[in-house]
């Protein structure tokens, strides 16, 4: 059992493998894998492999990407069974044996081939209370916030989420319970609960603890291990749980 998925491999292509055997999902929810042979290169990400297949094998292969550097969260797919961002997953890290299987993300409806419909993921983001409400206007100066305060550090820890839905795809509760808001949405709620400028604290806490909220998370911990940018939704959700307990006991600081 390995808890680490993030250690980069220093050697990219030293394995001497010349071609990759690549299985790619074709079709919608009903579909099948198709196998392709793709040249192995030193500098090659999983997204490059998919691109190669589109350019040289199946021109109408559907996949999604935008930034190609790990900031837009558009390119996530299931790679050899694990959800990952593909633009920053070096082939050497996942296909030591020269075999790759690439499928769409789990837990989201498949549009076609490698593309999923992320609509529900963002609906849940909103549903979890993930929207800032301020008290000041654009005519006023900005709030002073102590950068070393515990709340600010909590918010910082979760804020750089790229909404790639890798965690959403890694979590079994999401597959078991369609109402579960999922790790990313709750992580965002947690950053707001730690944002001293956010006025709708009670609303966000209520949304994040309601049906499908933090109580549905069973601390499976797959999300925090899969998150490509090193965010720990598990920790954030635990934070909401703790806050809901304090709130229940009338001990929450506001």
């Amino acid at each position, binding site marked *: 059992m390995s808890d680490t998925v993030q250690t980069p491999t220093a050697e990219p292509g030293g394995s001497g493998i010349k071609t990759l055997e690549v299985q790619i999902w074709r079709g919608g929810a009903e579909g099948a894998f198709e196998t392709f042979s793709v040249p192995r290169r030193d*500098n090659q990400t999983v997204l490059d492999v998919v691109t190669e297949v589109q350019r040289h094998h199946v021109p109408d292969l559907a996949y999604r990407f935008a930034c190609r*550097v790990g900031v837009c969260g558009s390119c996530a797919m299931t790679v050899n069974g694990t959800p990952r961002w593909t633009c920053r997953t070096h082939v050497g890290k996942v296909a030591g044996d020269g075999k790759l299987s690439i499928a769409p993300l789990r837990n989201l409806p498949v549009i076609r081939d490698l593309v999923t419909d992320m609509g529900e993921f963002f609906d849940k983001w909103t549903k979890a209370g993930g929207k800032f409400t301020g008290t000041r206007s654009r005519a006023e100066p900005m709030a002073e916030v102590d950068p070393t305060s515990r709340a600010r550090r909590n918010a910082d820890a979760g804020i750089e989420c790229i909404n790639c839905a890798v965690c959403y795809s890694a979590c079994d509760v999401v597959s078991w319970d369609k109402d579960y808001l999922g790790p990313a949405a709750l992580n965002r709620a947690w950053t707001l609960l730690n944002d001293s400028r956010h006025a709708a604290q009670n609303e966000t806490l209520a949304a994040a603890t309601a049906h499908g909220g933090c109580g549905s998370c069973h601390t499976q911990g797959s999300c925090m291990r899969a998150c490509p940018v090193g965010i720990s939704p598990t920790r954030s959700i635990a934070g909401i749980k703790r806050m809901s307990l304090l709130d229940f006991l009338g001990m929450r600081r506001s």
Partner: protein
Amino acid sequence: MHVEHHQTDILILGTGGAGLFAALHAKQANPDLNVTLAVKGLLGKCGCTRMVQGGYNVALAAGDSIERHFMDSIEGGKWLPRQDLAWRLVTGAVERIRELENEVGCFFDRNPDGTLHQKAFAGQTFDRTVHKGDLTGIEIINRLMEQVLALDVDKLEEHRAIELVPAADGSGLAGVLLIDMRTGVYRFVQARAVLLATGGGPTMYRYHTPSGDKSCDGLAMALRLGLALRDMEMVQFHPTGLLGGPDTRMTGTVLEEGLRGAGGYLLNGAQERFMANYDPKGERATRDIVSRAIYAEMRAGRTTPMGGIYISMGHLGRDKVAKSFPGMVKRCADCGFDLAGGLVEVVPTAHYLMGGVEFEVDCSTAIPGLFAAGEDCGGVHGANRLGGNGVANSTVFGGIAGDSMAAFIAAGAPLRDPDKSVIDAGIARAERPFALKPGDLHGLRDRLSDTMWDDVGILRDATGLARGTEKLADHRAELAETGLSGSSRAFNLTWHDWLNLDSLLTASEVITASAQAREDSRGAHFREDFPETGNLDSTRYTRVRGDGAGRLTIDTVPVDFSIVRPGETILKDAATAAQ
């Protein structure tokens, strides 16, 4: 061909900083307006605003002033910016950054005393760049996206605009023709006001930084509609893009400028430092100088195995580098490169288009009903964009566009009947490749990017530009003969590659024509046959129009120094300005 029809009050093309801000402001002005957002990718998850690393320029701190920010922008732009636009940018940035913090919810980094931290960015006389770590764009776009998702707006995601459709009676814009990329269905959206916010993006160069969805579609559509594009020769190159070889999409992506600032070395293929031969500031010289120096080394053949140069950080101490630049180190490591201790191959990379559609301070254009904002627009930055002025530009003018469109509709803007022939022509253009024999589309794309890199790139001259023009004509002819295999239109990325190439070719032609017209060197544009900057007092900008049949007409227009003249300053404390 079947076309589905939609109607809306406001149609916004693109969901970068400009598009999202416009939606927000339009809805704030009048919550009853029907606002539709159409975007080539997913809402907020494409485009370059999300990719902003450095941050957002705004004069906030004591000691800084909007006048100073303005002078920096004008001088950085080599006196080419339209001054009323630049002034609107620097004044608007102050309000917009507060709006982003106080209303939208961006949580920018703080000083120990709780105030906003502002860092240094090259080419500025004051540390005024607001940021969130080194991933400022994620914070800005995610927060904007949340606000917009919570609004009652219509979303047309994975919809590609292919034609701006004028009214049949010529009175203005009627709407936009789009392709629903998921199904391949054509969709005409009729709107009282349309915002062009598709973000330009010089992705026709062999090495480029922008998001893969950007392919100058907006500029090509605007040109076909008859609008003028200005300053198109001004293509900004970032000196250090990652070089991973031709077959990886990582190639061209930015390695941040701070690496040089922190003391990183640039080494040529022989592993020798060379920057001192070009500029006394060495590696710390400005973007354009470093880019030109690297290009010169490359052209002289002193290159690395993959044809670039090296960046080396190891002498600063592996641990220190890993600690100061964790994001960059991890990004390189993910792709198999050791930035902290080893040598990483880099190359200058096309980053930003200063040029674009001519527009007014209120974001209106020459066509009633069509508004424009963000990187699609020209005139704000002149010959060079300061790092940190790009996202300020898209958010400031995006918001203004939202206000203007709401006001435009409140004043009684009609729904206009579309010119059907333009819709038909748009569909015919898009359908064309399906009727042709499959060809070497990706080879063609490589040829285009080589042409632009070699002949219309960092160092230009009349011979190269003439050669570039000829090759572009060949590429154009080749595209017109290159078809697609199969007939599936649903999520067919190869079809969209074809359409991307079509737009990129158009923009390339405009860039080349503009570069030929500018016979001096300034900012991002460098002519080896005219290495000097011309007389600033008689500065003119280039302006290109299409005739509708693929021919371009170009003229140059004197810059109106409406606020300050070359050699003068509006800084009260001119002594500090002189540094």
